């Protein structure tokens, strides 16, 4: 009983100073979620990071930090053993009890909301910058992102095509899923001035040969690791149905780095620019001609 009472008191004491969006003690930060880690590094506070989760694969330096594992299955004691002063966790981090346990152990734990939109990417950067007391650097990051997005928009206006793009999430040839409506991949495809070839369902569904043929995509979009896992372009074209699509016939297959493409972090502008050029070949030749 006394134990429970003392825990409640401790929780209440720790919960109080954690209110509000004031600057936190940033001496030892654990970052959870690829885009959160990326933002913390982009703000120049990478040196204070003492631990990351398994999805934090960029920048390179982050991958050398101790990993606390998968972000939806965080170990409370593992995080605490890194003696953090601040835990920055992307929305969806769990289980919820672990976040409560971290807070009850007196560790300031902030959950960063996340959505596949430009506004959310900006919000993530600003929230984290404010917590780390680096609002100026945050502004610079946001401005840079907006400049890149504006350049991407300009490119998009030059583009003459609006290809139908099929995003394939592959983990080896036995496991290939395609992105439907409402996915992060679809949001990126639209930002890059193209259309999702799938309109019939929401979320990811296993890829079937007939569905691929009826979707008739002009371009196949994969993550770099995903394309490698099916044996590159040749391996992908050999998959059932792929060769019968316009994309397969013309071998129009685009690969993007996964955190860059799906993270909606500080590199969002760069990612949209890169994807826009890759999805509209007429731009590539135009820009190549311009530089010559």
């Amino acid at each position: 009983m006394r134990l429970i009472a003392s825990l409640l008191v401790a929780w209440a004491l720790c919960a109080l100073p954690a209110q509000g969006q004031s600057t936190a003690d940033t001496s030892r930060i654990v970052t959870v979620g690829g885009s959160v880690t990326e933002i913390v590094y982009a703000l120049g506070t990478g040196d204070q990071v003492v631990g990351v989760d398994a999805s934090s694969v960029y920048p390179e330096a982050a991958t050398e930090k101790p990993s606390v594992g998968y972000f939806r299955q965080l170990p409370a004691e593992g995080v605490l053993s890194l003696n953090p002063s601040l835990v920055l966790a992307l929305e969806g981090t769990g289980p919820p009890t672990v976040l409560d346990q971290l807070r009850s152990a007196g560790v300031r734990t902030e959950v960063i909301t996340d959505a596949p939109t430009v506004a959310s990417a900006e919000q993530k950067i600003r929230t984290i910058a404010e917590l780390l007391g680096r609002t100026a650097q945050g502004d610079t990051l946001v401005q840079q992102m907006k400049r890149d997005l504006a350049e991407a928009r300009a490119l998009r206006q030059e583009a003459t095509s609006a290809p139908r793009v099929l995003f394939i999430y592959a983990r080896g040839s036995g496991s290939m899923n395609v992105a439907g409506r409402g996915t992060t991949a679809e949001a990126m495809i639209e930002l890059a001035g193209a259309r999702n070839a799938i309109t019939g369902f929401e979320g990811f569904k296993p890829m079937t040969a007939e569905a691929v043929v009826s979707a008739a995509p002009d371009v196949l979009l994969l993550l770099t690791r995903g394309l490698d896992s099916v044996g590159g372009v040749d391996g992908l074209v050999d998959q059932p149905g792929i060769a019968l699509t316009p994309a397969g016939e013309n071998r129009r297959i685009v690969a993007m780095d996964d955190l860059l493409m799906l993270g909606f972090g500080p590199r969002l502008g760069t990612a949209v620019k890169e994807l826009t050029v890759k999805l509209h070949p007429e731009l590539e030749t135009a820009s190549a001609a311009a530089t010559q």
Partner: protein
Amino acid sequence: MEPPVLTSERPEAERQDEAPASTNGRAAASMRAQHRRRVRLVLGGLIGLLAVAVGASLTLGAVAIAPGQVLAILAEQVGVSLPWAYETRQELVLTAIRLPRVLLAVGVGGGLAVSGAVMQGLFRNPLADPSLIGVSSGAALAAVITIVLGSTVFSAWSDWLGAFLLPAAAFMGGVLATVIVYRLATREGRTSVATMLLAGIAINALAGAGTGLMIFIADDDQLRDLTFWTLGSLGGATWTQLAVVGPVLLGGMLATPLLARPLNALLLGEGEALHLGINTEQVKKLVITLAALVVGAAVAVSGIIGFIGLVVPHLLRLAVGPDHRVLVPGSALLGGALLLGADLLARTIVAPAELPIGIVTALLGAPFFLWLLLRDRKRGTGYSF
């Protein structure tokens, strides 16, 4: 814990062990004394093992807390000051994270092992474990439904129960599947153990199909969530959780020894047990109810943890024979100690990350189980009940 003096109603198998000596009364008496000493030794050893496992689990972990500090923190909770200094964070880690986790591991491990022991007794089959009566697959189906549809179809429930929705659903799913299996196997007040086994297989397959359907419509995050759930974890242990499932696990473990004598009689066969004055239908009902409640509660809070329910009673049967009066309390102790050991490995081996505990129990349990099988085949004895 002390086994009562063995009487003539001991199971046949046990008497067979001593059969060559029974021609001579004095030799038989000395065999019995030897057996009692062995039982006492094994149970004493198990209590010691559990104590060591608890001590090690409290002391070791990702956050360093010295044994003296552990003692000092625990003593402080009951108002005694010891000379070891510690930090507030260490106290919070020990009292809010490690202690509930250790107690949960003891309860879940003991509960699973005891359920395994009584199920093996009831089915008179060394391969029986609680998953036979559908409790694990029913719980898994309910948990997977909650993970996949919890935020949409069942959002009202989810808002109301919050983090308790999944454990509550898993518990109900496990119990419901068991009730179905039991009903299918019961006709005119008689439960056929063989039908129950077959009905269990069918219900497991059905639940598996339902789980597969949920996997099909799950998104990426949900898929990973449910994969992790089926690998088990004690990481979510909190005092609130313990307060809810603790009584079920403890009550089950304390009640099962009452079934020991009837289960011993059942080993002779149902007809023989009936002639010995055992209400076999009632025994079956009690065993199934206990196993469903205990395993349902365990699965609800820790996901699916394999091999404890299967291997622990086996091990003990090898050491002390098939007498349930020893087997049941021994399984509780050994199950608790083994799960604690597995959890200790799971949370330290890749620290600061954590392995799902189901990986550890299967990784240690499966080779060990094979070794037991092969060793017994070599000796030509095999398993006898």
